[in-house]
């Protein structure tokens, strides 16, 4: 009896062990690849990404993508904590600013030995070179949005202006004609410290137009004549009252699509947002009113963290994703600032080629080369001095000299 019972126990034990072993083998074959991004919950981009991941899993049935979704505002902090605690996702999406922070802290894997970058090179976006630091590539630029001069053609016609401005002088002249304060303003722009991040994009746009660069040879150069001219021009616009003062971006963008503001220096997402809010709006996009036509960009990089649990599968995904970037572009309705541009939209609205053709400013415009990881401090110092020029009527040269001095002494 006892022997029988013992045999039964042994049989059950062997059976359970076999089941457990089989399950673990199956599990080992099925890799769950964690992909972290704030895009998951965005209406256009999130859907396009989900669809891409489903297609990928059909091609690679043993790899399933597990979304790691966080709102943009908390994304950088959370990812930093996860990577520092060796709990990183396998694929990590990073904006340009985050990318440099993560890279500088040594959280990202160099991709040079993992991916055949040479094979992907023909498909590289213009922004890809930004991801190459000290001869190593830490991410793949998958998309970027650029800035252009958005203008309301109806308001231009009403003011007797035939075409969008092509020089700063023309811009100011047209702007004065377009301003009928407080009912109508020529421009909507961020210009206060409570929108520091957004203002930096706008400020960079004008400074680059005058040929200014925030840094030269990885050293601050915020007091060069070109940068000072950009600041002076901004002050001229401020004093001319061509934009509503103290108004935040959400408000002036709404005013733009209500036809109360004639121009914005903004990205294509705002263009489509304006059209979806007011389909009757007669708006177009034009290059920046400067000879160099330079523009800023917000770049998105796909990276693999050093502490990723499945780096091999992450590489497979990145390779596949990059080869199919055009499909992603078609899925994301309003991405037109890159090679993943949506051709259908471009055929329908050809003037949006402005976003695609605009040459990128140095390092994407907003990232001062050599100070990428210290952008918040850099930006705060510069914009504080620009504020002084705007509201205290301080001398632009003296202020930018002071800013240069502070930046050189930045620890």
């Amino acid at each position, binding site marked *: 009896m006892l022997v029988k019972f013992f045999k039964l126990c042994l049989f059950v034990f062997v059976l359970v062990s076999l089941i457990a072993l089989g399950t673990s083998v199956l599990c080992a074959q099925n890799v769950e690849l964690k992909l972290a991004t704030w895009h998951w919950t965005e209406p256009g981009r999130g859907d396009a990404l989900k669809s891409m991941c489903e297609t990928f899993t059909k091609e690679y049935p043993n790899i399933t993508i597990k979304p790691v979704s966080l709102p943009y505002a908390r994304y950088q902090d959370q990812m930093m904590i996860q990577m520092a*605690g060796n709990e990183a996702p396998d694929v990590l999406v990073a904006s340009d600013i985050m990318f440099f922070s993560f890279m500088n802290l040594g959280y990202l894997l160099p991709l040079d030995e993992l991916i055949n970058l040479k094979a992907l090179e023909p498909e590289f976006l213009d922004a890809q070179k930004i991801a190459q630091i000290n001869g190593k590539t830490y991410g793949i630029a998958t998309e970027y949005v650029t800035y252009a001069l958005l203008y309301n053609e109806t308001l231009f016609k009403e003011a007797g202006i035939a075409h969008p401005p092509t020089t700063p002088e023309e811009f100011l002249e047209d702007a004065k004609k377009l301003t009928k304060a407080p009912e109508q303003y020529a421009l909507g722009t961020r210009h206060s410290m409570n929108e*520091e991040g957004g203002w930096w994009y706008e400020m960079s746009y004008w400074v680059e137009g005058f040929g200014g660069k925030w840094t030269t040879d990885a050293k601050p150069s915020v007091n060069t004549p070109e940068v000072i001219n950009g600041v002076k021009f901004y002050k001229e616009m401020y004093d001319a009252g061509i934009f509503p003062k103290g*108004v935040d971006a959400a408000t002036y963008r709404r005013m733009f699509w209500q036809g109360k503001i004639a121009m914005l220096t903004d990205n294509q997402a705002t263009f489509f947002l304006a059209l979806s809010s007011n389909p009757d709006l007669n708006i177009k996009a034009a290059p920046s009113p400067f000879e160099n036509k330079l523009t800023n960009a917000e770049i998105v990089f796909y990276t693999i963290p050093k502490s990723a649990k499945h780096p091999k599968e992450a590489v497979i995904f990145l390779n596949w994703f990059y080869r199919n970037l055009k499909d992603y572009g078609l899925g994301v309705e309003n991405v037109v600032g890159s090679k993943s541009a949506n051709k259908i939209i471009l055929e329908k609205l050809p003037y949006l080629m402005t976003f695609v053709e605009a040459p990128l400013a140095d390092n994407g415009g907003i990232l001062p080369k050599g100070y990428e990881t210290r952008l918040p401090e850099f930006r705060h110092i510069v914009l*504080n001095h620009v504020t*002084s020029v705007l*509201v205290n009527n301080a001398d632009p040269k003296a202020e930018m000299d002071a800013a240069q001095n502070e930046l050189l002494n930045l620890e």
Partner: protein
Amino acid sequence: MPRKRRHFPSKNSRVQRGVWTQILPYILVTPIVLLVVVFVLYPIFQSLIISFYDSRSLIPQVNDYAGLKNYAWLFTSSSTLVTLRVTLVYVVGTVICSVFLGLIAALLMNISYRGRGLARVAIIVPWATPLVASALIWFWMFDPQYGIINYFLHLLHISSQGIQWLITPQWALLSVILVDVWRIFPFGAIVLLTALQAVDANLYDAAAVDGAGSLSKFFYVTLPSIRPSLAITILLYTIWGMKRFDTIWILTQGGPLDSTGVMAVQIYREAFRNFRIGRASALAIIGALLSTIVTFYYFRMGSNHEKV
């Protein structure tokens, strides 16, 4: 009738009860002590440790140890002085105005008149309104072009151009103080109203017999009677003021020209904008020390007053 037999506890049980009486208070305070240790003391200790590291990561590594470098930076940087000055002006401004307004509101709510109940409810509204919502409403009211404040200034011929409330350093700090005073004075009003209602009416009668007028009654009866509540209100306002972040961040993010950059804003900026967690922790430790000194000073004043 048989006498009821009285039960005397044995020596052992008396000893046990004695031990139990001694242990019980410790058992009762253990949960709260644990909470304080885990959620207050441990984070402060961690902040202190982190303040000795110079790291760009939210989790510093061993080789980021920098000794007193962050403290040296704090005591030599001109921005620290600006931060302390702005914090001092902000705290003093909000405390004085909130206590003054709170006291007036409490006195008004303490006298009898028709609609007093409604007035009491109305005064509570700013305190009860969600913070973010009220800050955003104020942001709109301060709008230089379309805000209601400038509209009235224009209507009353006080300023035809309007004031750029939140974007000029001259006005930004005042605007932020105004918003916070509006938001927090009801708390003081309620605390002081409770104190006012506890004042013995006989004291007023006695003062009246002595020929005291309204002002004399206020200064010699009311004020001394509500002094403990007044002190605790001032203390709380001061501590809250020293760590105020939310309204300021929503309205100005510490700008323009750092004119509203109080300590909490600078701590946030260093930690989550510049990712200098060590510097932020050092600043937080200094802030905590200042708060402790203020609290200690208030309690010291309170005990001295009681002795007198």
